[in-house]
């Protein structure tokens, strides 16, 4: 089976155009990362320089990996059921587009803004810490291994959340239910990244590589599995073919 780039790009571009003109989606994309960032930032700003030693032990900024786990889940959970509810899904499914292409376009449209937002928020947090935190605190928080982990795990976590979100979306008949389930499904990823950030789960190179390989496999399998679950008849009529 060959994937048509043009059809994937058509879905991707259409989605981005819709995001730009849908203030509620833009607001959801913007507010969640800020909630993740603001509260811990205030706590970091209040820390005295003497707390630098204890900060150096942990991987505090890894909690920001919650953003690529949560934001794409919200968008992806809307992607299929949202179109179905708007009545725009049937015309798309009557075109020659394959299920795999449709899903890939939808996934990319969730992936690109989510990853961009995640990196932007991470950069913003680093800049704020650098400018406003006590000098010892800032140097304790800036770690090369955390930067590598952010760069590596942000797209991997986003990919996993997206496929789970799209799978839920393709099986749901209500947008709200899909988004709630999508958020719930992203919580395990948030929990793991938070536990690693606060050193409850001790971060090591082996653990990092293991988790990265696992997520990569899940991301690739996710596309295949969700594509296999994609059922035009069910999406159009609500009945299984």
């Amino acid at each position, binding site marked *: 089976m060959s994937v048509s780039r043009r059809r994937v790009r058509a*879905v991707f571009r*259409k989605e981005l155009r819709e995001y730009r003109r849908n203030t509620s989606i833009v607001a959801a994309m913007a507010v969640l990362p800020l909630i993740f960032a603001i509260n811990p930032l205030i706590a970091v700003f209040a820390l005295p320089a003497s707390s630098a030693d204890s900060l150096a032990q942990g991987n505090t900024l890894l909690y920001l990996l919650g953003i690529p786990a949560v934001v794409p889940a919200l968008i992806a959970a809307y992607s299929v059921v949202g179109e179905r509810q708007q009545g725009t899904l049937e*015309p798309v499914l*009557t075109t*020659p587009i394959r299920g795999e292409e449709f899903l890939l376009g939808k996934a990319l449209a969730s992936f690109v803004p989510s990853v961009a937002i995640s990196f932007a928020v991470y950069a913003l947090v680093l800049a704020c810490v650098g400018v406003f935190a006590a000098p010892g605190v800032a140097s304790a928080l800036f770690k090369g291994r955390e930067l590598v982990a952010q760069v590596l795990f942000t797209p991997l976590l986003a990919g996993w959340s997206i496929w789970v979100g799209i799978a839920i979306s393709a099986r749901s008949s209500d947008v709200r239910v899909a988004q709630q389930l999508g958020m719930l499904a992203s919580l395990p990823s948030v929990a793991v990244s938070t536990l690693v950030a606060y050193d409850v789960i001790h971060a090591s190179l082996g653990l990092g590589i293991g988790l990265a390989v696992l997520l990569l496999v899940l991301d690739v399998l996710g596309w295949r599995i969700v594509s296999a679950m994609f059922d035009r008849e069910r999406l*159009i*009529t609500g009945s299984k073919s």
Partner: protein
Amino acid sequence: MSSGRLLSADRSPALSVRGLGKHFGERVAFQDVFFEVGYGEVFGFLGPNGAGKTTTVRTLGTLIAPTSGSATVAGIPLTAENGVEIRRRIAIVPESPGLYLRLSVTENLECFGDLYETPGLKDRIQDALRAVDMTDRAGDACGTLSKGLRQRVALARALLSDPEVLFLDEPTSGLDPVGARDVHELIDGLRNRGVTIFLTTHRLEEAERLCDRVAILNTTLRTIGWPADLREQLFAKTLVVRTLVPLPEPGRVFDGLPAVDGWHERDSGAYVVSVSDSAIAAPAVTRALVAAGADVLSISESYHSLEDIYLELIDEDNEVGRR
């Protein structure tokens, strides 16, 4: 419309449906449906709500898998493996236009043109917009358009891929008379361009005006043919005779005339005469009336509309259902 253009000997039909059926569990959406549609034909698919029209369109459009029977669409066997190839050759305009309301008309068309991998898309979009007379609204967001204009955009979207078969599912549903007339004119234009159109509707005057042949579906196919043939099949030919005053002895006037099978008085001074051949019966009836000294107001052949045909068949079904 000549039948030769519809089913030419050198080309397979645009649609060929053989015993097609679809069940959702115990519920039968439609079954045992047989028909063929020739290239260039405008084929009307009529039936009451819930008759299975939309499900038939979705099945032929490869959105739904049939549970029985077989079909070829645009010359390709209807199978799951052929779905992409069939969808490449057809276009479906569903009852609801299903446009992206936040996107402009052009952006909607760009999206669908890319989904069909249409070559020379910019020119094709201009052609499609011209065909539906929407060039001046190309930059408008679809959400700002009236229902009639949205339907036009949906038609333009369907034209982008230059489909061999165009399915229109209730294209005038919910439109006001002006909007419906505009859509009718567009369909007429498509017919003139030789596009094969499969039109589902329950607006009978629409089908009568636009379609070469019609089929009436009520879960099963009740009839199929040219409207004129269906009239002949279903209704006896009659002459309606009106006289200024009631005939004193109508039996002496009508009985025994050539090609007259019977008669009855409908109301005072109005008689319905059943005939086998109106070309023979009408002059004979006229002569007999003049000979009887009747003051004749009119002699006319009765006309049965498609609505009469439709109601006759659907009423039959309802009657059977009640028994």
